[in-house]
């Protein structure tokens, strides 16, 4: 069957549509042919696909061919079967007849003969020639057609239709098309079945020795071709896919050495989209095909179908992996292929695929994600093409024109060198060509970097190693002896190819010789020569012919890749390639374009924090900006360079960046340039709580500023903005430093004056300042303290308030240090505790107003000392009673001016105590009080009379908190009293000194008696009050509330200490007890008292002295009496008040009797007899009446009792 390959190919090329045979029985075809052919292509085609599902084909091309045509005649049966796809898919039998007899006798038998072949799908078109006006003829035609239908239609299928030549019926063409389609469908189904059966049979033999791939291919492609003719492209594609799978399996399975192909002239140009590139007969090898051509052929067939299916995206998506896998296959056979055939093929394949798919692709037709994927694939194809193109360019010496960027290095340094069996030699006719001399471009700022490699290994070594099989020379001789090569000699393991590559043939000994190792220049020349032999594509040859052409192609490919990646998801790929375009633009002086592209690359790297990569590109951008005189951009780039990791640049380089900034700021700039230095100068508030101020207070704000400059930098002005956190209306307020500030590298602390602010919470907004004509601004906040994580996001933490301004509130608490009485008229310390409440009292002034009765000893200083906490004080107090408060850190004496004291600085934030000398002024004397009010300073306890001697007791109640020492006490008596024994009024001197502890009582007894009263005339001169004098001293301290007077304490004089005198006035009354009358209560009846029982109360009144004449009275012999009784307890019968007669002589008596009835049982107070006319002092109760008497309940009445 393989012999039919050539025939199969030629049939395929001539046959491209479905054939419909026309059996023209009655010579009608020439008449109706045009009408029939106008119906082509069929519009409502519905065919079955391989899985027998209906598929609608929009336009199915077909061709009517007479059975008598040469194309359908003279075919051998076997030939017919093999190429069955070209046989007619339907047979139209054209007949006409105007007579029934003729039909029966002639036409019918003939038709039977024609239709007896079951293999054919046929139907009959009865052509009526009858004119519409000729009814007779029409009737006859109908009769004949009816007869025809009876004879040839079956129940299942109508096979007849009638065509009026003078005007077909309206639905004739539809009818015809449906019948044609039915026939085609049936034929197609049958033939598909046939081919499938054949293919299955052959597949079963796949592992047999008789297996022949060519036969399988013919069957498979026949089926595919048939599907393609029927416009069932999906099915055709599936057949080719299966064919490819089968081929790859067989090509890998069979261990026989097979010819790969690809060695013919022109094979270097990929034919992956051109199925007719080579005839299959040319590539057949034994029972199969050469891999090189056949795989491309299969891919071309698949692509053709995919394009027909309008799926260019799929061509690209299949194409890229095909090229990669085919490239690997080429690599395996590199030893038989021409030099760099693989690279050239890949380049042409990529370009062909890009051209074909992009020209077939219409924007917006595919879904967005498919579109993006399509562009990504195009980007990949461009990128792959670009890499291979660069490789070829490098081999012929254009390596110096290739940017040693990370992207190029990643692509080329990991791509192995071509591996020809023998590296090509310099041709004999080679002459000195152009000289390419390149030295590494020194980057701006004097940045020196080791160039990235573009080579997987040293080309010199690789090339000569492949020549070494011919001649083993001394490897060291292969180096040119120039600088870089020397370094290679010193470190042979160094993989980095020197940048300097001179391509000159002027060096001595250039004569080509297989015995001598090649020099690099020779390798370039030899490679170029060999490539010219390999490359057949004139465009590619041209692109490698000169540096300019190379650059043009390089730019075209790079732009193609970048633009397509930009349209895809792979933005990074696109932007990175923009950087490569920028490098070329820069080289050609198109700095504007270069800067734009570099900016995109820098934005990409800095946005994601890829500082290493950024450090590679940013100097280039800076250089562009400098050339373009873009001062702002250049400064920003310098700042960004300084902001990068310190390890990325040397100190010298960083200093160069800074010096650029300084020189621009102070010299070259025409106009002030704003600059964002957020990445370089950062700031934050000091750690700890924010500064707290009250409304209206000025303050000083301390801010930490981090400088990323490598050296000190002088900032002319520096200002910070404060932002209110919860008050958007407030806006930012600027705080300025007054003088130029030098920022050291690293941390600096800046202090700014803070004017009074409104209440609220403030954060730092921005840092601005000037360096020369440079206005800079920073928005970023540095992290304070140890970094909590390396997380990128931590820089975006909410800012911490740096200042809180509070509403007016108590700022200081003033309290008495201790509450204690003052010694009258003595200067005493009064303590005031000054306690700041979360507020600094720096510069505060304390104004003191004593109020009435108190004065400040202005002649004396005021003392201030720090105060320990109250709790500590209490503890201390518990342990030791007289523990003082003065566990002081600070102590200072201050002077009072006009009642004002300025607090010292040390007391700004401390609780302190201020001791002020106060004098309580009182010119009146203290007065003693009775015992019922013991709070008074001294008490007259009482008096009693024993004969004529009076004993007068004084109780001293100390109210001071310290102990008192009484040194002396004496009583200056008033008129009418004298001291007994003619003494001086002092108690026994042995009592003194008497110590009285705090809050205790002591008693002093004075012995006095009545003296003579002074005559009335001298009354005014004598004293009406007695005076108690006590000389005492105090041994306490001011912290416990009692202490000697300030003056005494200050002088320390013992006399003064003891010289305190306490005076208290007392009023003594003369004794007045002089009874003249006595009242005696007479005994009550002994049987007791009962409620309701009358009782007679009796009192005896006796005159103890004669009634004195001088006391004039009208009723001298009568005494007024009065009985007082509680009306609830007693009912009194008789007069309660009245006069009774009593003689004026001593010893006269009278009994007063009153009838009473007790009302309540129990102990009750009896009625009392009083004498209202007589002073109480003159009445003696003898015997006295009882206080309480017992009253019994009334006796029980038995009259109501009933005996039991």
């Amino acid at each position, binding site marked *: 069957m393989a012999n039919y390959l050539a025939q199969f190919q030629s049939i395929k090329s001539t046959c491209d549509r479905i054939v419909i045979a026309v059996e023209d029985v009655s010579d009608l075809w020439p008449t109706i042919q045009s009408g029939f052919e106008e119906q082509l292509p069929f519009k409502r085609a519905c065919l079955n696909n391989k899985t027998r599902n209906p598929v609608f084909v929009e336009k199915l091309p077909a061709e009517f061919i007479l059975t008598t045509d040469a194309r359908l005649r003279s075919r051998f049966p076997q030939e017919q079967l093999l190429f069955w796809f070209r046989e007619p898919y339907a047979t139209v039998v054209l007949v006409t007849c105007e007579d029934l007899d003729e039909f029966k006798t002639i036409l019918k038998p003939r038709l039977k003969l024609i239709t007896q072949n079951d293999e054919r799908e046929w139907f009959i078109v009865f052509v009526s020639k009858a004119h519409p006006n000729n009814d007779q003829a029409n009737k006859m035609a109908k009769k004949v057609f009816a007869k025809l239908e009876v004879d040839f239609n079956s129940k299942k299928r109508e096979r007849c239709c009638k065509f009026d030549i003078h005007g077909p019926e309206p639905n004739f063409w539809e009818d015809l098309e449906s019948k044609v389609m039915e026939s085609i469908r049936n034929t197609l189904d049958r033939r598909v079945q046939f081919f499938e059966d054949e293919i299955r049979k052959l597949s079963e033999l796949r592992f047999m020795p008789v297996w022949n791939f060519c036969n399988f291919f013919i069957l498979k492609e026949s089926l595919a071709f048939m599907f393609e003719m029927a416009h069932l492209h999906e099915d055709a594609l599936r057949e080719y896919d299966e064919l490819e799978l089968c081929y790859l399996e067989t090509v890998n399975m069979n261990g026989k050495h097979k010819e790969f192909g690809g060695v013919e002239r022109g094979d270097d140009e990929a034919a992956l989209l051109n199925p007719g590139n080579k005839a299959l007969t040319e590539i057949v090898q034994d029972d199969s095909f050469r891999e090189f051509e056949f795989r491309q052929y299969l891919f071309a067939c698949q692509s053709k179908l995919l394009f027909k299916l309008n799926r260019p995206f799929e061509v690209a998506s299949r194409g890229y992996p095909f090229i990669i896998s085919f490239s690997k296959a080429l690599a395996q056979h590199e030893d038989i292929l021409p030099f760099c055939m693989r690279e050239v093929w890949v380049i042409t394949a990529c370009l062909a695929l890009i051209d074909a798919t992009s020209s077939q692709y219409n924007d917006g037709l595919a879904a967005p994600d498919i579109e993006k994927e399509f562009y990504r694939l195009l980007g990949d194809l461009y990128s792959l093409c670009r890499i291979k193109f660069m490789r070829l360019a490098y081999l012929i010496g254009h390596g110096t024109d290739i940017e040693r960027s*990370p*992207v190029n290095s*990643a692509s080329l340094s*990991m*791509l192995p060198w071509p591996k020809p069996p023998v590296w090509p030699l310099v041709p004999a006719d080679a002459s000195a060509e152009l000289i390419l001399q390149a030295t590494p471009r020194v980057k701006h700022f004097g940045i020196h970097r080791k160039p990235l490699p573009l080579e997987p290994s040293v080309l010199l070594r690789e090339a000569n190693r492949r020549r070494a099989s011919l001649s083993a020379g001394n490897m060291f001789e292969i180096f040119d002896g120039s600088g870089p090569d020397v370094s290679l000699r010193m470190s042979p393991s160094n993989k980095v190819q020197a940048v300097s590559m001179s391509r000159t043939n002027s060096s001595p000994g250039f004569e080509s010789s297989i015995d001598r190792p090649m020099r690099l220049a020779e390798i370039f020349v030899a490679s170029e020569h060999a490539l010219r032999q390999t490359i057949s594509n004139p465009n590619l040859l041209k692109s490698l012919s000169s540096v300019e052409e190379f650059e043009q192609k390089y730019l075209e490919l790079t732009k193609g890749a970048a633009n397509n990646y930009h349209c895809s998801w*792979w933005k990074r*790929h696109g932007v990175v390639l923009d950087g490569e375009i920028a490098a070329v633009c820069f080289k050609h002086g198109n700095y504007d374009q270069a800067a734009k592209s570099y900016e995109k690359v820098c934005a990409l790297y800095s946005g994601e*924090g890829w500082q290493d*990569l950024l450090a*590679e590109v940013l100097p280039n951008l800076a250089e562009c900006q400098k050339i373009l005189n873009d001062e702002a951009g250049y400064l920003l780039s310098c700042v960004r360079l300084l902001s990068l990791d310190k390890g990325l640049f040397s100190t010298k380089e960083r200093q160069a960046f800074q010096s650029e900034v300084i020189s621009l700021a102070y010299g070259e700039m025409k106009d002030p340039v704003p600059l964002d230095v957020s990445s370089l100068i950062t700031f934050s508030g000091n750690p700890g709580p924010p500064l707290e101020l009250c409304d209206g207070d000025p303050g000083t704000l301390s801010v930490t500023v981090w400088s990323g400059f490598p050296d000190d930098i002088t900032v002319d002005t520096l200002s910070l903005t404060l932002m209110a956190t919860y008050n958007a209306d407030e806006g930012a307020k600027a705080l300025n430093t007054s003088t130029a500030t030098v920022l050291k590298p690293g941390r600096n602390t800046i202090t700014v004056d803070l004017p009074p602010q409104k209440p609220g919470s403030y954060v730092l907004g921005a840092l601005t300042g000037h360096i020369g004509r440079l206005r800079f601004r920073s928005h970023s906040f540095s992290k304070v303290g140890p970094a909590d994580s390396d997380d990128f996001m931590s820089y975006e933490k909410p800012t911490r308030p740096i200042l809180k301004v509070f509403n007016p509130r108590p700022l200081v608490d003033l309290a008495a240090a201790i509450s204690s009485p003052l010694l009258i008229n003595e200067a005493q310390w009064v303590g005031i505790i000054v306690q700041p409440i979360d507020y600094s009292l720096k510069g505060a002034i304390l104004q003191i107003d004593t109020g009435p009765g108190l004065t400040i000893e202005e002649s004396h200083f005021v003392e201030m000392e720090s105060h320990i906490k109250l709790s500590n004080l209490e503890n201390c107090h518990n342990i030791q009673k007289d523990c003082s408060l003065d566990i002081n850190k600070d102590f200072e004496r201050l002077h009072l001016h006009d009642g004002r004291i300025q607090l010292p600085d040390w007391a700004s934030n401390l609780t302190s105590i201020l001791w002020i000398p106060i004098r309580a002024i009182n010119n009146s004397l203290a007065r003693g009080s009775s015992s019922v009010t013991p709070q008074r300073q001294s008490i007259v306890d009482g008096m009693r009379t024993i004969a004529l001697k009076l004993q007068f007791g004084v109780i001293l109640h100390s109210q001071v908190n310290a102990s008192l020492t009484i040194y002396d006490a004496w009583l200056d008596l008033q008129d009418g009293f004298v001291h007994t024994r003619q003494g001086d009024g002092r108690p026994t001197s042995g009592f003194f000194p008497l110590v009285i502890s705090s809050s205790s009582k002591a008693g002093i007894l004075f012995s006095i008696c009545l003296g003579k009263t002074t005559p009335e005339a001298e009354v005014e001169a004598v004293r009406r009050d007695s005076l108690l004098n006590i000389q005492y001293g105090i041994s306490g301290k001011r912290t416990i509330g009692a202490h000697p007077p300030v003056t005494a304490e200050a002088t320390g004089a013992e006399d003064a200490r003891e010289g305190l005198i306490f005076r208290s006035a007392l009023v003594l009354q003369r004794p007045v007890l002089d009874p003249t009358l006595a009242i005696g209560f007479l005994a009550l009846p002994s049987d007791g008292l009962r409620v309701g029982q009358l009782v007679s109360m009796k009192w005896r009144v006796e005159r103890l002295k004669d009634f004195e004449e001088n006391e004039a009275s009208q009723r001298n012999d009568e005494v007024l009496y009065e009985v007082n009784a509680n009306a609830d307890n007693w009912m009194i019968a008789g007069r309660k008040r009245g006069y009774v007669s009593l003689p004026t002589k001593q010893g006269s008596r009278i009994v007063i009797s009153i009838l009473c009835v007790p009302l309540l049982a129990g102990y009750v107070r009896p009625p009392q007899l009083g004498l209202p006319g007589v002073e109480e002092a003159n009445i003696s109760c003898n015997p006295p009446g009882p206080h309480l008497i017992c009253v019994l309940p009334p006796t029980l009445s038995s009259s109501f009792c009933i005996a039991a």
Partner: protein
Amino acid sequence: MIACVAVVGHQNNPLYIQSFTEADDALKLHHIVHCSLDVVDERVNNPKKSGPTLNETFLGLLYPTENYKVYGYLTNTKVKFILVTTDLDVRDADVRNVSVTISFKC
């Protein structure tokens, strides 16, 4: 041979990059790792395309070129582990094991 291992933060910022090449050419591996983030983004943003591997943290082969392969592993916290290998015949399962081991050790 593994040429480079990288840990990339959830904002695509490099956290750690270690290259294992002798030459001073780490920058090219930075580039490869950085560009491979395009593929990670694409897979994360297009769950349809990822298909059944969506729920898997191991992203598999991201970036097949002729000469090296890039594999990716995505953690729940969107931290990526990127592996660049020059071994072209590496098995997916092996790389998956390496990735998982790295993720646990990190």
